[in-house]
């Protein structure tokens, strides 16, 4: 059964320097509050994993939490680039950032393999692209029945996966609905998991399209209302598009970013 705890305690206990950490949420239910708590607790040398690193990873990278990023698309959706991410890759500031780059199909299948207890996954992917030449975790594999050549990618098994969901009950059973992305696989692939939720309730009413993660595969649950802001939580609040717009200016400028860090995270 998952422990119901606070965000600060959960991050202190579950996220360690040097860990491989996945924060997932595909546009919807992005665990932003948890990412900022990791910044607040000054974690270092993390290998960050995420299909779509966006603002929260730009913040964590800019704050110097990460030494490596495993991803498939890094941007500020509908706005432009992640300037902290770009500066880390292009100028190595505040610390150099190693990258391991895949496609969405590859990343999704790496989580699936991780969740399935398999060392690798097979897909039709990367053929003809330059990705295979710059990413060592992409290899050919041959079908033992047809002889056809396909692509293999290794399983992702984060030390800890963090997601945000709408609800959990007091036993730590987690319920999310709307666009549920790759979160189930990311949690099942991880050694430890933290789920921040909009609210802890007595009973989870069944709902159309809901994905339920039983409490016995979740390590910790923390109630964090609006924990996905500026992304959205279906049924709770809308996406804060102005925040995404405003982030561009903050992210472009080191001083502006550091002022933001000081003002919005550390105080």
């Amino acid at each position, binding site marked *: 059964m998952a422990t119901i705890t606070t965000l600060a305690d959960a991050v202190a206990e579950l996220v360690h320097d040097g860990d491989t950490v996945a924060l997932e949420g595909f546009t919807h239910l992005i665990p932003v509050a948890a990412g900022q708590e990791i910044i607040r607790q000054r974690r270092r040398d993390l290998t960050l994993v995420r299909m779509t690193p966006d603002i929260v990873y730009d913040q964590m990278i800019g704050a110097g939490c990460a030494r490596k990023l495993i991803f498939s*698309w890094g941007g500020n959706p509908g706005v432009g680039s992640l300037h902290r991410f*770009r500066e880390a890759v292009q100028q190595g500031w505040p610390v150099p950032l190693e990258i391991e780059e895949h*496609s969405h*199909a590859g990343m999704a299948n790496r989580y699936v393999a991780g969740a399935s207890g398999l060392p690798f996954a097979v*897909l039709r992917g990367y053929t003809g692209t*330059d990705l295979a030449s710059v990413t060592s975790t992409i290899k050919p594999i041959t079908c033992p029945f047809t002889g*056809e050549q396909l692509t293999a990618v290794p399983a992702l098994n984060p030390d800890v996966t963090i997601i945000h969901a709408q609800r959990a009950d007091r036993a730590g059973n987690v319920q999310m609905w709307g666009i549920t992305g790759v979160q189930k696989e990311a949690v099942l692939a991880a050694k430890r998991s933290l789920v921040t939720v909009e609210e802890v309730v007595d009973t989870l009413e069944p709902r159309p399209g809901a994905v339920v993660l039983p409490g016995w595969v979740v390590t910790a649950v923390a109630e964090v209302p609006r924990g996905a802001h500026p992304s959205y939580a*279906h049924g709770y609040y809308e*996406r804060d598009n102005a925040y995404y717009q405003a982030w561009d200016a903050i992210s472009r400028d080191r001083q502006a970013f550091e002022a933001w860090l000081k003002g919005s995270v550390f105080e």
Partner: protein
Amino acid sequence: MSLNYTADEMMSVAASRALRAGSSCFVGIGLPSTAANLARRTHAPDLVLVYESGTLGAKPDRLPLSIGDGVLAETADAVIGVPEVFNYWLQPGRIDVGFLGAAQLDRFGNINTTVIGGDYADPKVRLPGAGGAPEIATSCREVFVVVRQSRRTFVEKVDFITSVGHGRGKGDRERLGLPGAGPVLVITDLGVLRPDPETSELTLTELHPGVELEQVREATGWELKVSPELSRSPEPTEHELTVLRALKEAR
């Protein structure tokens, strides 16, 4: 009489017209999403929109602001996980049209959205990366690229092949064993390009109204081939423009 419209509006209209009624379309955000939603509201009401966030048959009443916009889940026939989108729906070739953008596009329709300049380890510009594009480009039956045309974007050879088009020319896709036909249409703000049947080189086949051939040549980073049957795209209809503008305002 001629209507007032922007080059971007013409591009969206041309892209939407290319989508056949009754087909399915894997939609990226931005221009592709605008064109696909315009098509659904004009000539292709039964167009099936698939977004990589896991919404099958989404029917948004406004332009989604992201590929994971809540309106997509609310209006979809089915909402599925992201691994399923790629494994059960895209990979087997169930989707007719993949709609892609590009930061760089070369004469054979190869797409770069990864890095520009320098080398991969130390690029001049770090772009967002692949996302779903590499597999969209290989697995959809056809690929349409929608992109504003300029020398910066239309280059002789892309700095990095993120998503393969026709490789180094005719026959490369077959040699690579890629199931889909690849980029069969490139729709820009100036006109429309199609791969030459003999060489697979992108060739100008349509000019948008009021655009001169010279403008397109200047906006192309290679010596542009022009189809002998070069035609003019029909102007946007009043209806298309009304629907398009309503869509944009509904944001």
